[in-house]
């Protein structure tokens, strides 16, 4: 599989292939085509960052521009899903969940349960997350923890072009509501992606780097910074195993636990804010289910408990980088238990 394309192209290809394969797949959102009602070109934008470009010319009115009414059109995608369609709706930035959240967590997420199993809501909500673009506090958040907290939703956070395509096709075919996060800093990332259609199952984390000393659990863009840190540490003889969660809900508990059982040390790396987030979620999982294997405290490397700042120097400080990740890994390596710690009651 020698072909190399970008993360953005991989998403576009997944949408194209699924729309071609299944007529019930619809794409809707603000400017997903662009140009509606104007004097100029249709498909002028293909979404704010061009991810859906080319779909409207090919699939016509199955690709729908919307007013800026997220509650109505995200809700419409959800309603259409319960009525037999497989809509892929774009919530331009995940920061905008606040204007349509009810339809996602009280409606889509709960239908099947509230209705005693008699409903199915195969909708995919694609949304951009992440800091680094100088887009400031309302366009740079990573809010997957909020969706992971809600039973009934699935959350996908791909980190490579290959995963982006396979996980999006899986998400579209999945019969539950899926929130699919696209980190804006990954769109230009290149990687090998098969031209044919393929899926990657939900709830299967990937060990992207093997190592026996420290387990680093992470997701999204942080996967690459974690690998960078691991490569640095390798030079000093510390071998980190880096696990890319790929989906936060369902969560691949086994891969995390098995790795910690072999390394005895855990660092969790997440770009999101620290409270009630994925870093705490993974830490708690391990503190409960792999405690016996832990040789040192669990370290979390996350953004601070602050909004995302605009100034470039501050935003760079906001995001965890390879140095902070490496420092955390070193600290768990260097930890020396005092007497009380090593004696069991």
């Amino acid at each position: 599989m020698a072909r190399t394309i970008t993360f953005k192209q991989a998403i576009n290809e997944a949408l194209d292939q699924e729309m071609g394969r299944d007529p019930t797949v619809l794409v809707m959102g603000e400017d997903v085509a662009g140009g509606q009602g104007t004097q100029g070109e249709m498909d002028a934008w293909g979404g704010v960052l061009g991810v859906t470009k080319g779909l409207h010319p090919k699939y016509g009115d199955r690709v729908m521009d919307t007013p800026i009414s997220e509650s109505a059109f995200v809700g419409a995608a959800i309603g259409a899903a319960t009525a037999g369609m497989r809509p892929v709706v774009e919530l331009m930035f995940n920061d905008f969940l606040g204007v349509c959240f009810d339809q996602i967590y009280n409606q889509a997420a709960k239908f099947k349960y509230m209705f005693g199993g008699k409903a199915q809501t195969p909708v995919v909500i694609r949304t951009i997350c992440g800091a680094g673009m100088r887009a400031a506090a309302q366009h740079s958040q990573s809010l997957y923890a909020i969706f992971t907290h809600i039973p009934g939703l699935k959350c996908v956070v791909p980190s490579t072009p290959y995963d982006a395509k396979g996980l999006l096709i899986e998400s579209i075919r999945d019969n539950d509501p899926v929130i699919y996060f696209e980190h804006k800093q990954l769109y230009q990332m290149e990687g090998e992606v098969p031209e044919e259609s393929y899926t990657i199952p939900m709830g299967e984390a990937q060990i992207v780097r093997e190592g026996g000393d420290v387990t680093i659990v992470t997701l999204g863009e942080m996967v690459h910074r974690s690998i960078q840190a691991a490569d640095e540490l390798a030079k000093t003889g510390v071998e980190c195993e880096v696990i890319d969660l790929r989906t936060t809900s369902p969560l691949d508990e086994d891969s995390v636990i098995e790795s910690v059982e072999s390394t005895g040390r855990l660092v969790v790396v997440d770009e999101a804010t620290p409270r009630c987030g994925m870093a705490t979620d993974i830490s708690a999982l391990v503190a409960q289910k792999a405690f016996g294997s832990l040789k040192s405290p669990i370290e979390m490397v996350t953004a601070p408990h602050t909004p995302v700042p605009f100034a470039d120097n501050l935003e760079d400080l906001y995001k965890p980088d390879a140095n902070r990740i490496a420092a955390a890994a070193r600290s768990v390596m260097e930890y020396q238990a005092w007497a009380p710690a090593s004696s069991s009651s």
Partner: protein
Amino acid sequence: MQTETQSPSTTTSLDKQDLLEAYRQMKTIREFEERIHVEFAKGDIPGFVHLYAGEEACAVGVCTHLNRGDYIASTHRGHGHCIAKGVDVHGMMAEIYGKATGVCRGKGGSMHIADLDLGMMGANGIVGGGPPLVCGAALALKQAGGEGVAIAFVGDGGSNQGTTFESMNLAKVWNLPAIIVVEDNGYAEATSSNYTVASGSNADRARGFGLPAVRVDGHDFFAVHEAAGEAISRARTGGGPSLIECKVNRYYGHFEGDAQTYRGPDEVKKLRETRDCISNFARQTIDSGQIEPSELEAIDRGVMQLIESSVAAARQAAKPEAAELLTDVYVSY
């Protein structure tokens, strides 16, 4: 509040069977609600229960036009819409009692009765939750290329939720076969629609979005039926969305247990005596010679039996198995 209410008309496309069926449905809703009112007072029914008694002409006047393939979305006050769309009365009663035999296997309760197979998208605990979902159902129907329509019922309170306005706009922009039926029963909980609905008219608001809109007397089955007929046939033939505002009243409190001190003295008593949709329907159809009193009495007996047996069955039914707590969260996980 200005009354641009259409003068009720009994001239109608309905044949005798239709009239009897409409009566049966209104009567079923009424007795279903009256009985729940009684059982709730005994403490036998858990949770929040919102009764539709008094508003039957709205649900039935609209749903009489619908086929199984059409969709409706309801509100927290959903029993009437469910019955009008054909949801099984035994299953509904059992659901309200929280039993395993309920339409939602006891996991949803009064505020979440749904039956997608019948095009009933669900009662909804979120005010204004329905209209966006109905835009989606209408979109699915439009994509499918048939003549299906989707209808969102909202209250006067729900008419102030941003989702309702956004949905009117989206339905118009996408020219969807979607209809919003606002049931203005005068109150959102303890607050008057005179206070919360600026301009006083949801029909005026809808026209601001370019939707054809009318206000009708929601106690008058024939007025609702006629207005709904126009809007629905317009939607079925590609004419896009409409809004129908039904001025109506509820006979009971916001929910069971509401002391209703915000209502005028005898308000409900007067309403029952003068504006009752079912007695008016009976009088009109009997006076016009379309229906015999005995025919209605026969229906009444059948309805009473149905309600009685549904309560008896619901009482005896088993609660959900403990294992049900963890099922139905996902299709696969």
